[in-house]
């Protein structure tokens, strides 16, 4: 980017509760070929917020290294998720455990409805969100693209609504732009697309719609070259944001010449 644009980009910050971010790309830490690839991909992505999952400490084979050995917590804000929870109680319990590690008071709330599709359960999600807000968490909530549910979540006091563009890991991008538009029309909190991103243009499209950010994992971790794809996602996120701020030209069946009429 040119210098002035760069400067401007520095000032176009995303505020989530008491946190503030320059990068609008949030990246997951699961399913990479190796810890090293994950570390390099996170760096290439330019992200400042990474999600992690909560799981049992293994007693038998004590791993000499842990995930956080590869994540510089001075550099990245940690966003624990409640992945794998299929009801509100489990999700709330998981969020509290995550907080007691002292690493973060943020939580990416997921209450899943179905082990096959991993789609969110709106009812359990609402119940858990109510509790976690009451318990003082900074709640970023994974949900469907249902504008009514999104509004209910916002009214409960969550910090960010995170509609799925498409099912987790499906790589289909944003399947229903219409719903995302309606959510954005209503929302007073940042809307962050979470899940469904398959390639860079999917992120650009989400940002061009006016979303405040994008969260993804599989799209990078399972790409042929995760580190390079992370770079692609970074560029696409910045591209989409800039395009949104710039104001695109309208769509037409056909239009006008970009060169003047010939005159000789």
């Amino acid at each position, binding site marked *: 980017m040119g210098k002035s644009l760069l400067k401007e980009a520095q000032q176009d910050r995303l505020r989530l509760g008491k946190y503030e971010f320059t990068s609008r790309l949030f990246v*997951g*830490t*699961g*399913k*990479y070929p190796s810890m090293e690839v*994950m570390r390099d991909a996170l760096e290439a992505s330019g992200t400042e917020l990474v*999600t*992690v*999952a*909560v*799981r*049992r*400490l293994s*007693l038998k084979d*004590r791993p000499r290294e*842990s*995930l*956080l*050995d590869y994540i510089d917590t001075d550099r990245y804000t*940690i966003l*624990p*998720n409640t*992945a794998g929870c299929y009801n509100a109680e489990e999700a709330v*319990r998981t969020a*509290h*455990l*995550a*907080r*007691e*590690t*002292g*690493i973060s008071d943020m939580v990416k709330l997921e209450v899943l409805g179905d082990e096959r599709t991993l789609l969110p359960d709106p009812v359990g999600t609402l119940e858990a969100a109510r509790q976690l807000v009451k318990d003082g968490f900074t709640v970023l909530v994974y949900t469907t693209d249902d504008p009514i549910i999104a509004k209910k979540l916002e009214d409960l006091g969550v910090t960010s609504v995170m509609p799925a563009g498409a099912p*987790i890991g499906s790589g289909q991008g944003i399947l229903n732009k219409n719903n995302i538009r309606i959510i954005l029309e209503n929302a007073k909190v940042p809307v962050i697309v979470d*899940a469904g991103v398959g390639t860079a243009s999917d992120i650009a499209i989400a940002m061009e719609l006016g979303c405040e950010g994008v*969260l*993804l*994992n*599989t799209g990078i*971790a399972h790409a042929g070259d995760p580190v390079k794809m992370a770079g692609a996602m970074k560029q696409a996120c910045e591209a989409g944001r800039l395009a949104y701020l710039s104001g695109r030209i309208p769509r037409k069946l056909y239009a006008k010449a970009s060169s003047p009429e010939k005159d000789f």
Partner: protein
Amino acid sequence: MRLRINGETETYPDGITVRELLDSLGTGNRPVAVELNRKVLPGNKLKEQILREDDSLEIVTFVGGG
């Protein structure tokens, strides 16, 4: 004494604290959280919390996730 840790039954010296247990598990300085008898144990209580026969613990940490 017998402790139930992450679903396994283990034997530990009486009067051990949670912090001591964690050290014996070699968690070092990696972030962990503990549920004692299905109740989340505040992080600042690990040091003082003494374990008793048949206590059941869930010890969790962070792994890669999206």
